[in-house]
């Protein structure tokens, strides 16, 4: 798919994510907006998946290890046709399957239950290992936060994936530089992320997480790497696409009010209109 089309998809994913968070009056918009461009490329250009057959045995797998950004995942799955976009308005409601954090048993298209940080990437390793054991050609993708990687289990998984040469595994670290309590540099400095993964034996690619050519190139390069997993460290802007949310830590886990929501949708619609011209 052309970059321009993907970018429109990403803005729709952003609108979907914000609609979910606004409707629930809770959820995590900041880190959902920062990964929207990647989600668009994965789900509309890269993954071998079929919304009509969500459990297809040899499908590519996706694990949102930073599970609190479920609005981005649900927004993407709805946009891709796994379930009606209208369902997003019941996000986090007691009569809805759209749990606050991704839940695999009742939400079409969710490959792994996540939410507790650090656990998802290990599960992605298990999926990749199973692919190796049973000689399957699917690939496994996971997205981690740059705050999430403060969890020790992330590095247990890093050691594990390199040890078992899981070259069918490609992770993305969403390096937006902010976590709930403030800048990652102040709360618990996780830099240099690239050198850490290199030291653990991974192939590392550094990209701008909002540049479609770079995202596509990274995905293509990862497929050529044999004998080791790939970590794509992508520099992103938390809250990307909504002017008042960009780089503001306060939007990590709070919902917009009606006025703020309407402004956000107007801004995103304006971006889409500009791209559509």
């Amino acid at each position, binding site marked *: 798919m052309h970059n321009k089309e993907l970018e429109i998809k990403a803005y729709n994913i952003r609108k979907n994510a914000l609609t979910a968070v606004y409707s629930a009056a809770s959820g995590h918009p900041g880190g959902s907006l920062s990964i929207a461009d990647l989600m668009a490329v994965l789900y509309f250009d890269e993954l071998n998946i079929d919304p009509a057959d969500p459990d297809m045995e040899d499908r590519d797998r996706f694990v949102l290890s930073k599970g609190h950004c479920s609005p981005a995942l649900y927004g993407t799955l709805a946009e891709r046709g796994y379930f009606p976009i209208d369902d997003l308005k019941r996000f986090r409601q007691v009569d809805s399957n759209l749990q606050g954090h991704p839940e695999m048993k009742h939400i079409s298209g969710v490959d792994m239950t996540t939410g*507790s940080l650090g656990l998802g990437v290990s599960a992605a390793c298990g*999926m990749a*290992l*199973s692919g190796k054991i049973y000689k399957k050609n699917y690939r496994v993708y996971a997205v981690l936060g740059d705050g999430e990687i403060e969890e020790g289990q992330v590095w247990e998984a890093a050691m594990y994936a390199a040890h078992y040469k899981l070259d069918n595994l490609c992770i993305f670290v969403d390096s937006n530089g902010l976590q709930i309590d403030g800048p990652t540099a102040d709360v618990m400095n996780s830099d240099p992320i690239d050198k850490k993964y290199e030291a653990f034996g991974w192939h590392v690619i550094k990209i701008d997480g909002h540049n479609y050519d770079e995202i596509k190139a990274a995905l293509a390069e990862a497929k050529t790497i044999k004998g080791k997993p790939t970590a794509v460290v992508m520099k992103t802007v938390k809250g990307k696409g909504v002017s008042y949310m960009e780089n503001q830590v306060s939007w990590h886990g709070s919902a917009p009010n009606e006025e703020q929501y309407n402004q956000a949708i107007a801004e995103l619609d304006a971006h889409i209109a500009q791209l559509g011209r």
Partner: protein
Amino acid sequence: MAKKATREAYGEALRDLADKYDFVVLDADLAAATKTGTFKKAHPERFFDTGIAEGNMMSVAAGIATTGKVVFASSFAMFAAGRAFEQIRNSVGYPHLNVKIGATHAGITVGEDGATHQCLEDVGLMRSIPGMVVLSPADSIESKACVEFAINHNGPVYLRFSRMAVEDVFDEATYKFELGKGNLLKDGKDVTIMSTGIMAGFALQTAELLKNQGINARVISMASIKPIDEDIIVKAAKETGAIVTVEDHSIIGGLGTAVAEVLAEKSPAVLRRIGTQDTFGRSGKPADLFKYFKMTPEDIQEACMDAIKNK
């Protein structure tokens, strides 16, 4: 009779069932001790060490299970149920995945390694996870049956094995495992001794001691702690009026607690609980530790007499 540890039977069962069923085995650098090494030796292509990283192991196991495979993940009970509790709850329990946790070295019978390695809380922890089956087999025969059951069961199973060798209490020719069913080892009418895991031998010995006093004790072995056999508990309460639970675990959260819950709601009866009290374990030989923590057949006998007296 030759003695065998249930962990030995676990490793042998994995090895022997490998041709019949498709499953993989993970261990966190304790294969020689948990006896998954027995499986590894026979089927190295289906064995994967995760190194000393139990949390990662449980989530990796969950990931493998999402691809439709059965996975065994093994470590000592302390590091499986204890250290990796949250991974088991969130990666395995919540999505109800086909991960079978083979936890060995449960209880004070770990012996000399002492309190850090003697898990006395695992049954309580695992029992509290929705959908988790908790099994604590009594001997090598029941252990093998529990492993085969776990492979065929759809969902997570916690299997509790011990380090100390014990004599078999079941007959391989006639034994059949049934989920949620206790096993009557000896009938009796004056008091019921209800054990789980390798304490079945002590329960039977206690019944012999009581017989010398003219007391006819019923002995029941409860491998299936969750789901628990409510019927056999209620029947014992009604027919014998007094129950003494026996477990190599804390009396808080384990079999004693599970039985107390049933009695309180369904059929109140006098209850005494043998196990570790609100305390950590300590180093020592298992036989000495049983004396130290008042868990010998003589201690159980005393608890039975007290229970009978208070009917």
